[in-house]
């Protein structure tokens, strides 16, 4: 649905995008991850027909963005990384205004506004002026605004920035709901954990270059070599830890067992059945206090990949 090939863009002599490539198949949620200033916004603006690349192509729904920007604008719903709201308009009028801008016929504008307010859970605030809404509500209203013409592709630039945890979760649920409605979604963030459990596809960008991109599981495998499990023992000491390590180190599917902060970290293959490992430990008489996957591990990999000394993937 979205294809980006060898995008290159310079601003005033400074390279903003050097080599950006990724694809997003129909119906997937693509997490576009990179530190601030890596080129996420520039790439999204090119996809949104607001900027022209110096080289490379961006295609949405089979249409090249700079060939027919009008057709592309019909396909996309764009939510910038800032939300522009108007003073002295109610939430409902705000949506009706954008529905009108997108050529929604008169008699459909009110129902469309109502449906969208319902969708983003703002139906009870329909008559409130936009500038009195909380930040999370404004953000959801802006997402609703991007949907007024029922686009099949959504380009969301940092939709969760500046939101409190509760509002973040609401935004995440909303994006999941939109995927269920069949939309293809590109969502950017400079914080990976925010996207890790939401996205089905992921792309890392750093200093204008793609570091890795593809289906979530592939990227995870490629950058992590397996998943990691953390095993904590009751009254752990080195003897117990080493004994426990010996119990599991040779099992098939276990890649590596290491001692980290008075606990075991077990690297396992993606398809490894975790419960068998737990069972083996318990049967061997090891007193397990906690047994859990290490979370945020992709973030670490991401930090490694994009850190100052990171090796560049061509």
């Amino acid at each position, binding site marked *: 649905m979205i294809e980006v090939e060898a995008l290159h863009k310079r601003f005033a002599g400074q390279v903003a995008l050097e080599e950006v490539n990724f694809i997003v198949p129909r119906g997937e949620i693509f997490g576009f991850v990179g530190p601030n200033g890596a080129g996420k916004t520039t790439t999204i603006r090119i996809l949104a027909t607001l900027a022209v690349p110096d080289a490379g192509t961006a295609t949405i729904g089979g249409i090249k963005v700079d060939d027919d920007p009008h057709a592309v604008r019909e396909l996309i719903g764009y939510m910038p990384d800032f939300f522009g709201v108007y003073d*002295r308009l109610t939430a409902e009028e705000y949506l009706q205004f954008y529905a009108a801008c997108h050529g929604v016929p008169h008699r459909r504008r009110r129902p469309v506004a109502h449906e969208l307010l319902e969708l983003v859970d703002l139906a009870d605030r329909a008559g409130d002026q936009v500038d009195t809404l909380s930040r999370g509500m404004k953000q959801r209203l802006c997402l609703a605004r991007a949907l007024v013409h029922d686009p099949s592709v959504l380009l969301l630039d940092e939709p969760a920035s500046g939101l409190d945890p509760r509002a973040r979760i609401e935004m995440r649920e909303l994006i999941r709901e939109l995927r269920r409605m069949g939309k293809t979604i590109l969502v950017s963030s400079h914080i990976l954990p925010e996207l890790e459990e939401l996205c089905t596809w992921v792309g890392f960008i750093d200093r204008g270059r793609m570091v890795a991109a593809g289906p979530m599981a592939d990227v995870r495998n490629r950058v992590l070599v397996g998943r990691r499990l953390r095993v904590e023992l009751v009254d752990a000491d080195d003897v117990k830890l080493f004994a426990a390590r010996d119990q599991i180190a040779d099992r098939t599917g276990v890649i590596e067992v290491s001692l980290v902060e008075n606990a075991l970290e077990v690297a396992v293959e993606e398809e490894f059945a975790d419960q068998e490992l737990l069972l083996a430990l318990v049967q061997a008489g090891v007193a397990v206090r906690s047994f859990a996957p290490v979370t945020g591990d992709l973030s670490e990999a991401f930090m490694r990949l994009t850190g100052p000394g990171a090796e560049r993937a061509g």
Partner: protein
Amino acid sequence: MTLTERLVALLDNPLIVKDAVSRMRSWRAPVILTIYLGLLGAFGYASFVTATVLQSSQRAGSAQIGASVFASLAFIQLSLVSLFAPALAAGAISGERERQTFDVLLVSRMTAVGIVWGKLVASVAFMLLLILSALPLFAAVFLFGGIDFEQFVITQLLTVTTAVTIGAVSLFLSAVFRRTLPSTVVAYGVAFAGMIGTLVAGLLFTFALMVRGSAGAAAQAGGDFHPLLFTNPFYALYVVLNDANGTPMHVGRLFQLLFFVTGQPSTIGPTLEPWQATILIQIALVALSVIGAVQLVQARRAPMPSRPPEPQEPAAPDEPPVPAGQEVTP
């Protein structure tokens, strides 16, 4: 499509509705309206009192009082309109940009023409409301007599076209500048140049023409006015209100005088009254401003990012890529 449908379609622009709604909801709208009518009423009353006091000794009729009050009202209204118009229009497009809603408009189905047209109508509409709301005041003075209907209509027409012109030029400036502040400052500068600058310069040039004319052909009937005066709405208004016959000039003569040629008057082209010349110039200015603004909005469809990319710490191993084929050593 019938004419009415076309008209409705022209006004069926989301920006017009949106701007009108949000403008009329702000506290500013009634305040501006009150100040405008208050000033107009106060000046009108003052000139009425002055006229009666000054002319009572001459046993003036109501027609003379009417004419003089009407004239002062018309001048004050024209001044007020040129004072308010830049403020109302100079933020039209830069305001959208400052509010960061401009990009979103650009990715909608709105065309550049639609955006500029909607913004122009939205800002001019409020000025039309001001002018319309002052009509009863003019109508009351009109009852005194001394002003014929044609003068009344031309006065209002000139005020409207001046409002539209200043609005359009300010709108163009709001597309040129990214911020409303510089756009407003320059808009006031331009309005001042157009309303006062052309008047002063026109009078000076006319004086120069008179000096040169008296040295040559002494028999200059009626005198020559420099064409710059013909672009000035105040001068046009003055002629309309004070000279029933006007001072029509041939277009050819206007061009002669533009370059200070005082010889044999040319009779090429139709004759123009000052107000006709002013309105023609204004139409041209509006057209140029609108075309310019549309071009600028169109160009902004592929603008710089709203934030420049943050400077990165230089990555040492990154040599600028050498394009293939340029690696040939000399």
